[in-house]
């Protein structure tokens, strides 16, 4: 049977790369990350160090479980793209960091693909999330520097906040791995 050729519009929309159900799952997990982050910020205060750690821990654990549910090259990039676009629409986060973050995440995914890919090596989710979140934070610090370059002392705050949130990311990785195992045991995630 002859394979159907995709039109340029279908190719641009990514048809054939992801199924609708996978895209819906990615969207739902991004919604959960944002909702949990909003709730924690409302309960504990946005700049409270404990809140920062918890927000990031929940975020990275959600991404680890998402990668267990949709173990495909591109899942992490899409998840990051959706998260950043939402931050831009809701909070005006500097749009300039978006392409840089996407490039960084694509590079991390490319390395993971070269190492065998998520479907064959599920443990790759851990270094992938750790590395991509580090890239996100480094780029954010860089963009923040552009914003406060006349008064670099202000950057100290950004660095402290980024350090706390990265600590949360690392803690969340452990929680996410444990939860993914448990969900497999409960039959909620299929191998």
């Amino acid at each position, binding site marked *: 049977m002859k394979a159907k050729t995709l039109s340029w*519009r*279908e190719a*641009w*929309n*990514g*048809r054939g790369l*992801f199924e*609708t*159900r*996978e*895209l*819906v*799952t*990615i*969207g*739902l*997990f*991004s*919604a*959960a990350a*944002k*909702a*949990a982050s*909003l709730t924690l910020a409302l309960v504990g205060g946005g700049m409270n160090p404990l809140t920062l750690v918890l927000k990031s*821990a*929940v975020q990275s*654990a*959600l991404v680890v*479980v998402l990668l267990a*549910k949709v173990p495909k090259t591109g899942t992490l990039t*899409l998840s990051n*793209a*959706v998260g950043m*676009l*939402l931050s*831009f*629409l*809701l*909070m*005006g986060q*500097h*749009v*300039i960091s978006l392409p840089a973050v996407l490039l960084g995440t694509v590079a991390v995914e490319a390395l993971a693909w070269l190492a065998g890919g998520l479907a064959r090596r599920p443990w790759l989710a851990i270094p992938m999330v750790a590395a991509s979140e580090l890239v996100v934070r480094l780029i954010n610090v860089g963009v923040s520097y*552009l*914003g406060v*370059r*006349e*008064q*670099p*002392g*202000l950057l*100290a*705050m950004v660095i402290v906040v980024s350090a706390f949130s990265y600590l949360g990311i690392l803690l969340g990785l452990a*929680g996410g791995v444990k*939860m993914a195992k*448990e*969900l497999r045991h*409960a039959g*909620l*995630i299929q191998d």
Partner: protein
Amino acid sequence: MRALSRIEGLRGASRLDLRAETRLLMTVAASVSSLAISEPQALALLLSFSALYAVIEIKPKTLLIAYLFMGVMCAVALFCVWAMGFVFPIMRNSPMSMAISPFLRLGVTMNAILPLALNSRLTDLATALGRLRLPGIVRLPLMVTIRFIPTILNDLVQLREAVGIRFRGRKGFLFWLRRPLTWWRVFFQPLIVRLIRSADELAMAAELKGLEPGTDFGRAPRPFSARDRATMLLAALAVALSGLTQIVVGSAF
């Protein structure tokens, strides 16, 4: 949910009634131009234009609250820099004229983002991103995210309440601080289970509906109005004028 209804109270009817694309482009222009410009005079010019846009588009009370909040944030940041100056003397050397540039930049960005965040429906914004050629593969999950944030926020409220019932009202900070692993389990596990189940259910609903990566969820847009065109023209003029000021003032020093 109560906090969300408070946010709802800050919204106001937009006087310009701009299309979502116009507000998006205004935000991108403010973000990029404020980063590119560094002279306080040029940034002050940009701030004036953006403040005019915000005053027209936003309820005065909302704008006042936003400015007060920004003022407090700036004061805290300046205090930190001043305090750090005792540890790192080099930090005391920046001229005051230059020190205000980051805050002017923050003001420009805030003036542009408030109309976007408070006067646009998120589905319209995501649809607008589609018309600005954002690939469908990103747009579909973005639309799902926007649609389901309120549902998940509601779930989190119920979850918090269920935990409160099980632990007989011991929802206090210290109770959970002493039991971080229990906190993680009782809040995170039900959230994840709910997500996994919802994801399967929603995926089925999306397939049944016929949703595809390029599908728009939002309303059909109305045509660009004269107000849209005038706003974008004024924004372009403001950016050009600020750029010119940057060149002139920059070369003068």
